[in-house]
């Protein structure tokens, strides 16, 4: 196979395309990849794949992803990476790679394309099912692939089956209820700089499968001994694969420490590849089987009841010698070796099964937790189910007895630098639960989430407390199984696509007029319209003055609108609103408040009766969807006998609010067929009219207290009406205003915004709106007004607030404390409410605010203190209506 160059820590290395970067680095003789996070000890490659606890690198090429194990990065043209100690760094530029996601519904999903997974796929294909097979490796075969062996022809045929979708480099990261699986497929990194620019780097698969087969295989586990973290100490299966399959030639003399027959098979592979295996040290009193016979036949020395106790290093920190202890005599011998291959048994990958709450069961025979779970929807296969396929015969053994000094360098979690010493301290501190010990020691909390250290922790705990692993139980694994980049989860929903944007038919006009926008839910609304060189404060004052003294116009199209029709519409609204709507004459409008059953105000707005059985309800801009859902819930689940139909028409009807003393005169110039005079068109009335033959509905509704007209028109005609107003408006000084001015105007009149001036605990009474509560009829929430806590003294009530300093706009949300009230027994100054809306009023020539204050309606004129930063601002409680208490301006 051809060789290509890649870069690691700014040096050039050679590798074969597709092989793990770890293999190429080992082959070039690089044993130490990095230093450990907390202890600064040299560390090298330990494993073969995602279980790798040491060899973390940061990509420098492409996306600059951080904290990837060198064991999973494939060598590719243009690959550049650097070593990483513990904590990764985010790149300082935005992610440019593309990510996407897709959904798939299949009959059978098989996770793992090892022998067991391939056989399961074959079985389901034969039953005529559509099968998806996913595997995190670059190719199929699992263990066979690690042995460098070809797939048997029968299984190669499985992969070619027309009903099979096989995805390599695709890792199942989570298993959820009803066989829902999320998997991430890595699609471009392995192609290096040959990857097509438009290819998604990672694709997130959302898979729903009728049946799931988990054939996730197993990780080999290490042993706990002193100085078990040196470069040159590898899992035996990884060591043998790097040497035998990837041609790593740097290791000359090896020691194998084992608890099972896997160590013998790996020793033989090392031996056949030319490594001098000094001996197999097996904790068991004896062993048999083909693996043992083959190793012995090759002349590899075997010693039973012996294991590795400690290791020594050369000046570079890499393994130099191994101390072996005889487990019967406790005698030790030192053996020179540059490779220590450790086989501590297999740990089946139970993660996915535990995601949905399946508890793995301990099998002493396998020295492993297994999931031998079978239902008609989910089953396990292969090593996960206990089919280890060989003659392993493992001993339940996790490491030799160590004294305190040895335990300080006996690592359980290499990435966290967590040692046996720390685990003993945790147990000494009285911790018994494996979950508590994990949190105390940080074992299993690194990027690898305890893939090798979890089982060692259980084992060490068993040795300390003389328990069986079955008594301790496994850790709970939670998704994701491997780290998933946030960019992959975001997919293409980034930047402007991260959330839908809703715009009104006048949006382009606002843009051209230089509006500054604010987001209200998904809507883009003009916030204010600055003139050249004008800031927000000046713009808002100018807009306010225009509305109060001349004429101003605002786009109110975002108001939620619900068309309500049916013979029982009036009855229905009587039940929904606190006030009466059945008495509302046709062609008139009424402000209404709705409560939840608990009596708390939920939304408000003006509803117009268009006909006997026809109403048009408006809701707050942000509340449209939940109000419609609320209406539907009652109609569908409580009052199916009512004949009422609700339809969202928010985006059918545009609304233009024309406000100010001159608004009538201006509008009358446009409206020829309807008399807009006070006598002919009273407040809270609605009229059908035309402008340039376009049907409009005009309503005398005011959210500012000024004379005002709301012009409702079909969405597509809004721009025309708006332009006509502007053509005529020049002579009137017509001024566009945004939401900020709307807020100032409405707050001056004490008009609330539900959700801003309420905090989810106010009844209409708390908002000084007893006038909106009907005594004559039942409605949702009425019964709750009788509950003692809703009638109690000291409830938060809506009041006005006048700051002592007329120019000081108090920040919204600021707490209000009692004037002259010292700290209480706990040394705290109790608060008595908070500011909900706060603005500067050009009309009043001063700052003012709305606030929720405990028992506030009975505290008019009281001085209070509002701490803001280090300042104590003075303010006085007052009525919430600041302008035109007599409502004279609206006519």
């Amino acid at each position: 196979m051809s060789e290509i160059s890649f870069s690691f820590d700014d040096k050039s290395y050679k590798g074969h395309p597709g092989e793990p970067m770890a293999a190429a680095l080992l082959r070039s003789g690089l044993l130490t990849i990095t230093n450990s996070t907390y202890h600064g000890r040299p560390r090298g490659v330990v494993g073969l794949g995602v279980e790798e606890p040491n060899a973390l690198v940061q990509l420098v090429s492409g996306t600059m992803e951080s904290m990837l194990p060198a064991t999973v990065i494939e060598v590719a043209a243009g690959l550049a990476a650097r070593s990483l100690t513990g904590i990764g760094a985010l790149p300082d530029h935005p992610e440019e790679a593309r990510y996407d996601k897709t959904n798939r519904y299949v009959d059978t999903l098989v996770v793992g394309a090892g022998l067991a997974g391939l056989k399961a796929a074959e079985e389901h294909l034969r039953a005529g099912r559509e099968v998806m097979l996913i595997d995190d490796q670059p190719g199929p075969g699992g263990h066979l692939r690690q042995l460098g062996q070809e797939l048997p022809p029968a299984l190669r045929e499985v992969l070619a089956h027309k009903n099979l979708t096989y995805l390599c480099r695709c890792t199942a990261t989570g298993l959820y209820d009803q066989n829902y699986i999320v998997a991430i497929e890595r699609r471009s990194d392995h192609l290096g700089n040959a990857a097509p620019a438009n290819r998604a780097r990672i694709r997130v698969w959302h898979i729903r499968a009728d049946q799931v087969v988990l054939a996730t295989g197993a990780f080999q586990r290490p042993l706990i001994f002193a100085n078990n973290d040196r470069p040159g100490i590898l899992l035996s299966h990884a060591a043998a694969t790097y040497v035998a399959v990837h041609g790593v030639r740097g290791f000359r003399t090896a020691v194998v420490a084992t608890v099972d027959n896997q160590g013998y098979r790996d020793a033989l592979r090392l031996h056949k590849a030319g490594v001098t295996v000094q001996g197999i040290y097996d904790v068991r009193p004896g062993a048999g089987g083909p693996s043992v016979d083959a190793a012995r036949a090759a002349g590899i020395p075997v010693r039973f009841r012996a294991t590795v106790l400690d290791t020594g290093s050369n000046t570079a920190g890499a393994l130099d010698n191994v101390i072996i202890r005889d487990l019967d005599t406790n005698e030790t011998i030192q053996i020179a070796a540059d490779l220590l291959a450790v086989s501590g048994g297999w740990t089946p990958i139970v993660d996915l099964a535990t995601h949905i709450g399946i508890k793995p069961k301990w099998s002493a025979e396998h020295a492993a937790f297994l999931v031998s779970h079978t239902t008609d929807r989910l089953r396990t296969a292969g090593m996960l189910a206990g089919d280890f396929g060989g003659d392993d015969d493992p001993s339940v053994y996790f490491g030799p007895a160590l004294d305190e000094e040895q335990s300080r360098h006996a690592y359980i979690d290499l990435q966290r630098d967590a040692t046996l010493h720390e685990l003993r301290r945790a147990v000494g501190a009285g911790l018994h639960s494996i979950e508590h010990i994990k949190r105390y020691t940080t074992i299993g909390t690194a990027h690898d989430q305890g893939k090798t250290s979890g089982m060692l922790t259980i084992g060490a705990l068993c040795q300390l407390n003389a328990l069986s692993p079955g008594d301790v139980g496994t850790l709970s694994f939670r998704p994701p199984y491997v780290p998933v980049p946030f960019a992959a989860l975001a997919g293409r929903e980034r930047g402007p696509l991260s959330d839908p944007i809703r715009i009104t038919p006048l949006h382009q006009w606002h843009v051209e007029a230089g509006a500054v926008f604010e987001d209200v839910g998904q809507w883009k609304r003009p916030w204010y319209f600055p003139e050249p060189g004008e800031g927000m404060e000046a713009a808002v004052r100018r807009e306010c003055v225009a509305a109060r003294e001349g004429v101003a116009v605002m786009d109110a199209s975002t108001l939620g609108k619900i068309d309500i029709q049916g013979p029982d519409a009036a009855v229905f609204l009587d039940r929904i609103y606190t006030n009466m709507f059945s008495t509302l004459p046709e062609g008139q409008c009424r402000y209404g408040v709705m409560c939840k059953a608990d009596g708390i105000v939920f939304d408000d707005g003006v509803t117009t009766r268009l006909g006997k059985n026809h109403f048009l309800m408006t809701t707050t801009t942000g509340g449209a969807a939940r109000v419609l859902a609320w209406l539907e819930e009652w109609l569908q689940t409580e009052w199916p006998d009512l004949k009422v139909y609700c339809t969202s028409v928010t985006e059918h009807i545009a609304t233009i609010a024309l406000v100010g003393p001159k608004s009538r005169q201006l509008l009358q110039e446009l409206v020829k067929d309807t008399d807009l005079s006070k006598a002919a068109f009273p407040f809270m009335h609605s009229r059908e009219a035309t402008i340039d033959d376009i049907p409009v509905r005009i309503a005398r509704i005011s959210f500012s207290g000024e004379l005002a007209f709301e012009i409702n028109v079909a969405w597509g005609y809004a721009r025309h009406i708006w332009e006509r107003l502007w053509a005529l408006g020049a002579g009137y000084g017509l001024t566009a205003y945004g939401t900020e001015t709307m807020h100032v105007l409405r707050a001056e009149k004490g008009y609330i915004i539900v959700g801003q001036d309420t905090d989810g605990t106010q009844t209409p009474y708390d908002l000084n709106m007893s006038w909106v509560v009907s005594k004559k009829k039942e409605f949702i929430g009425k019964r709750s007004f009788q509950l003692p806590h809703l009638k109690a003294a000291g409830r938060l009530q809506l009041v006005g607030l006048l700051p002592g300093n007329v120019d000081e706009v108090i920040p919204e949300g600021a707490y209000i404390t009692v004037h002259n009230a010292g700290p209480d027994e706990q040394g705290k100054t109790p608060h008595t409410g908070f500011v909900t809306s706060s603005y500067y009023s050009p009309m009043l020539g001063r700052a003012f605010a709305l606030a929720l204050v405990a028992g506030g309606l009975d505290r008019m004129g009281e001085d209070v203190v509002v701490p803001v930063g280090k300042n104590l601002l003075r303010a006085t409680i007052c009525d919430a209506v600041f302008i035109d208490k007599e409502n004279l301006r609206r006519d």
Partner: protein
Amino acid sequence: MLYIPCPHCGLRNETEFHYGAEAGVAYPEPNTLTDSEWAKYLHIRANPKGWLAERWVHYAGCGRWFNLWRNTITHEIGPAWLPFTTKPKAPGNIGQEGPRV
């Protein structure tokens, strides 16, 4: 991600639905209840370990409310039924854990 059988649209992902708590809690005649009975209607719902009859609404689909048996421990989904129709039998003992999926 639950897989929920909407009676109108068939099996759909949980993200298309909103939860509506215990099913079968009818709106009472408010004025016949004591304060404590009314507060119980407002705030108290069954929350058993095991099978529970629940209300769901397919808000991102047909917009219709329906009822559903669901096991609160194993997350198994039982049959769905429309409001004001006969409630099917619980798939297992109510208030007891069923087997894991």
